[in-house]
């Protein structure tokens, strides 16, 4: 160790703890220092999931397939909703896969403080690592479900149905990032608020369900007109889901304006999430 004599007088401290709070602090330096922890958390979540279930990743397929079948029956056949000219299973599966990722990120993030109460109360690490690790470990599930979608796309292409993404497929990672950031942002807002107002957590499951119906998962945006169009379009997730449909299936609404709206609303939600999370993180141990 290299320690200069009398260094305290020169004011060279490595760490100064004060009551002060910063409004917006991504703690990038801290995140970098704890990057190994981030990856280990991701690994822990994945490994623990595999070890606890017999079928492992098979579960990842069952849920979207079952949901797609129900949607085809209820919304496609009974209600006769438009699917933008796409085969119904394809249209619903794309929406469900994307929505699931967003919903998982949101739901898991919204209980971060509650789930990590014990560990947060005993040891310090940048708290922001926990929600980030959730978003990353959920990517695995999203990736596996995407394989299912790809298989379905290939099936319909072989059948000779004319659809398909063009260059827009390059935008897919951007939309996935938007989903992650929105799920993260909303989840962080909710988890921060539930430390004070617990009853809010009951709303999450229900709220996510409702939000799905206000997003273009089961109907295309193009089928809406007038007021309804604007209500759905203002939903922050709508243009992200539309974007994903455009980039994977080639159908949906994607313009420069919708892209700008999606980008800015994602940024706003994420920023608010970080601010509120950071505010609460400092002292949540005292209140929960």
């Amino acid at each position, binding site marked *: 160790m290299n320690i200069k004599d009398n260094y*305290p007088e020169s004011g060279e401290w*490595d760490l100064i703890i004060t*009551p002060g709070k910063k409004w917006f602090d991504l703690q990038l330096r801290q995140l970098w220092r704890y990057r190994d*922890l981030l990856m280990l958390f991701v690994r822990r979540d994945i490994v*623990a999931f595999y070890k606890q279930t017999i079928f492992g990743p098979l579960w990842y397929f069952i849920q979207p397939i079952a949901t797609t079948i129900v949607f085809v029956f209820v919304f496609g056949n009974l209600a006769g909703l438009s699917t933008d000219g796409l085969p119904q299973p394809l249209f619903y599966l794309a929406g469900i896969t994307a929505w699931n990722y967003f919903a998982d990120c949101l739901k898991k993030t919204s209980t971060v403080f509650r789930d990590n109460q014990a560990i947060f109360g005993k040891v310090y690490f940048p708290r922001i690592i926990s929600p980030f690790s959730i978003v990353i470990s959920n990517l695995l599930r999203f990736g596996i479900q995407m394989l299912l979608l790809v298989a379905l796309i290939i099936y319909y292409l072989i059948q000779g149905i004319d659809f398909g993404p063009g260059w827009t497929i390059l935008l897919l990672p951007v939309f996935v990032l938007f989903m992650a950031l929105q799920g993260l942002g909303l989840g962080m807002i909710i988890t921060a608020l539930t430390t004070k107002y617990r009853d809010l957590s009951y709303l999450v499951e229900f709220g996510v369900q409702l939000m799905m119906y206000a997003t273009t998962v089961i109907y295309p945006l193009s089928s809406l007109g007038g007021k309804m169009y604007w209500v759905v379009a203002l939903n922050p997730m709508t243009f992200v889901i539309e974007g994903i449909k455009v980039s994977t299936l080639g159908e949906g609404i994607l313009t420069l304006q919708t892209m700008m709206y999606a980008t800015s609303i994602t940024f706003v939600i994420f920023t608010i999430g970080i601010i509120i999370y950071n505010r609460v993180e400092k002292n949540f141990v005292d209140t929960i």
Partner: protein
Amino acid sequence: MPTAIKVESLSKAYQIGQFSTGTISRDIERWWALARGKEDPFLKIGEKNDRSSKGESDIVWSLKDINFKVEQGDILGIIGKNGAGKSTLLKVLSQVTTPTTGTIKMKGRISSLLEVGTGFHPELTGRENIFLNGAILGMTKAEVARKFDEIVDFSGVERYIDTPVKRYSSGMYVRLAFAVAAHLESEILVVDEVLAVGDAEFQKKCIGKMGNISKGEGRTILFVSHILNMVKSLCQKTMILEDGEIQSIGATDDMIQYYLSSKKNAIKEWDSGVVGDFIAELNFARITDSDGNSVEFIDINEDAFLEYTYTVKEGGYMFNPNVHVYDQNGNYIFVTSDDNVNSRFDKGIYQSKVKIPSHFLNTGIYTVGLALTSYPGTVIHFHEADALTIEVKEDIRKRENPYTGTIPGVIRPKLEWKTMKKKQI
């Protein structure tokens, strides 16, 4: 030696009571006051953290104006009663929570061991948990990998390193967890009473390791413990915390002496509603001689009585008063209860007393816990773990034995002896 930690006017306030109600209005009140440029109303009120009297406000200062420095390579012991602020101080130092006022400056990385095995996942193997736990405590993957063999060696669980830790015995679990913690590379270690777990042999090993860390590698350790012997063997300097304030700081031997003598209280009164539930509450406790007069200490040659008074607010229960006695290191000496009570109590003020016979406890300082339980259902109405701290003294001139030194042991019974001549040689 240079300073490793400098704490300046550190305070921490807690809000007690109901958290979920009135928080919005309190927040608004606070914002409104601050917006008008007035003082924060939250900070204005406050009082000592004294559990035996009921506070006027629902804000309690768990730490109040703490100032101290620790030199690099020192092991500082921190002792104090329950609720003196020890845990809060550790939490603030280890950044688990923020201070209300004041600053802490530190040189080097800090790791805290407020608990062993934080973040251990039962489904993961020993190996995986070493890496995970190491990372949670602030090590990088490369650092853990470098120390991996040493950690496994220290823990003594080589054979099961690839077994999920849910199959470990609790002893193995603790060994592995402590082994990770003992190999942290941070310059400052904050240790809570984690050493109290594990078997005696392993405890010794851990203490040795901690001593080596500070002497050999120049690291600084803050060590909180109830176990005074452990503090004595480990720390050169000790701090006594009382009601959130530093009462004294100095050489460990002096501090322990001071602490023990200051801790004594042979008589104590509790405000209504502080210790107890809606059925019964503790009011008053004292030590008396056989004539019923309060005494400061117990004379080993005389019988003494532990007496406590409590109010039964709701009748109809079968109560069982019980008393718990610990030695100065926190070892449980005995529990005794009044098993003659067969009838249900109705409302009223009751007194229970138990005789401590002469020549029973050895000389020394003991902590007395007072409790009231009811049956059926074993409901504990109150249990004040350190209600009284008593000293048993002896007038050596009255000793029937010519030996004048200290007689070791926790108890000093007068047993029946017979010594006789068997044969002339």
